[in-house]
């Protein structure tokens, strides 16, 4: 089922933090305590779930090349895609303002604990990135864009939850002085990103391939295998390119 596949793909394989490093600034800044991380993660899921479908509608009926034909046949040639950035960021800023008002009304404690980070969601690259990836990957329907938004949000939420939990624990570990705080967080995030790469094989199996959701033990072997496969693949690609170029230069010389 397309929706289920896109859902799991956007949580694990195209994880916003571990695959494309979107939303890193607030991810690093808010992950010192699990409770604030959970609050911010939930806000991000909600904002993504609202803005990605909204921007999909904008893209479909206003911005894409040829999108304006519902206004009249003479508008079919218009291509307003250069306005995407401004329109997407405008809808995101508006929606974040709305979320802020709702959160302030229904949960003042959450509003206070999030502080400055709630309005900062508007400039969180994860939100704009969600809309831009939706546009560049040409997600075909509104339902799929909603699935993509929610899935991406959950992926980001998962990432910030795990790093917050880990950071709370390593406060009691003997980390080298110069690495304490920011440095070790970078390295841990890098290691987690390597771990998440193991999910890459999740959706490439046949109909009988089981969906792996917690392959923590097998990850090491799989990562090694996948890395070797990637290296071999890249070496092959480089080799074939180099031989092609070598062949071409030989031809030119002759």
């Amino acid at each position: 089922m397309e929706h289920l596949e896109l859902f799991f793909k956007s949580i694990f394989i195209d994880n916003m933090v571990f695959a494309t490093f979107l939303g890193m600034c607030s991810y690093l800044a808010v992950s010192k305590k699990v409770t604030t991380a959970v609050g911010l993660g939930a806000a991000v899921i909600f904002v993504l779930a609202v803005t990605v479908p909204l921007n999909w509608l904008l893209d479909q009926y206003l911005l894409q090349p040829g999108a304006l034909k519902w206004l009249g046949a003479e508008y079919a040639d218009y291509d307003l895609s250069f306005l995407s950035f401004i329109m997407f960021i405008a809808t995101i800023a508006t929606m974040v303002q709305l979320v802020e008002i709702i959160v302030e009304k229904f949960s003042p404690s959450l509003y206070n604990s999030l502080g400055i980070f709630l309005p900062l969601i508007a400039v969180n690259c994860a939100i704009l990135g969600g809309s831009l990836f939706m546009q560049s990957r040409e997600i075909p329907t509104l339902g799929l864009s909603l699935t993509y938004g929610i899935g991406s949000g959950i992926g980001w939420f998962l990432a910030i939850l795990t790093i917050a939990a880990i950071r709370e624990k390593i406060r009691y570990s003997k980390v080298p002085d110069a690495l304490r705080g920011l440095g070790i967080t970078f390295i841990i995030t890098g290691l987690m990103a390597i771990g998440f790469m193991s999910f890459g094989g999740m959706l490439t199996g046949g109909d009988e391939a089981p969906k792996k959701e917690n392959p923590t033990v097998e990850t090491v072997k799989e990562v090694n295998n996948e890395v070797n496969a990637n290296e071999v693949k890249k070496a092959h690609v480089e080799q074939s390119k180099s031989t092609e170029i070598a062949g071409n230069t030989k031809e030119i010389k002759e």
Partner: protein
Amino acid sequence: MGLLSKKDVALITDPLADNNPITIQVLGICSALAITAELKASIVMAVSVLFVLGLGNVVISLMRNIIPSKIRIIVQLIVVAALVIIVDLVLKAFAYELSKTLSVFVGLIITNCNIMGRFEAFALANGPWKSFLDGIGNSLGYGVILIIVGFFRELLGSGTLLGFSVLGDPIEKTGLYSIGYENNGFMLLSPMALIIVGIIIWVQRSRNKTLIED
């Protein structure tokens, strides 16, 4: 350098090391990590941010007395978005292949926390010339980290720099490859950028003990 006073020069040199936007202020990380697999992409991204931050700082600084406080984030976003659209169109026109590599990350310069952070922290409170220098300084600091990461990733990952093979030819087995050296393909994958930045932070904080957190 008679044009610039000591404080002005400090505005440019501080962000290069002691107040570096990426390693100290923790701003602008997203785009710094994802596109640094090639040195060329890193340089182009650094130049784009230089343009956007430098000009953006000046524009916001000129408007600082007429922007109402309640909508200042929206005004900042519009200024940045307009500048980024210009950068995006220029890249698409003059360097199409590179714009494909950078793909959505050019658009994500809009949400680059470094740019918004400098608007809020500096341009809204200072004059245009100082804001321009601050913008140049911070984007140079950002660019330095990008170039270091891109340098190591491209060199160790594919043995090339800016596309030129510097370690020898992997097929003909010349240069370093003749003694059995292999490219570290892992460096081309994104998580290594995080680990390289972690190591840069380690080196920087070991040399300057005042930056260590507790």
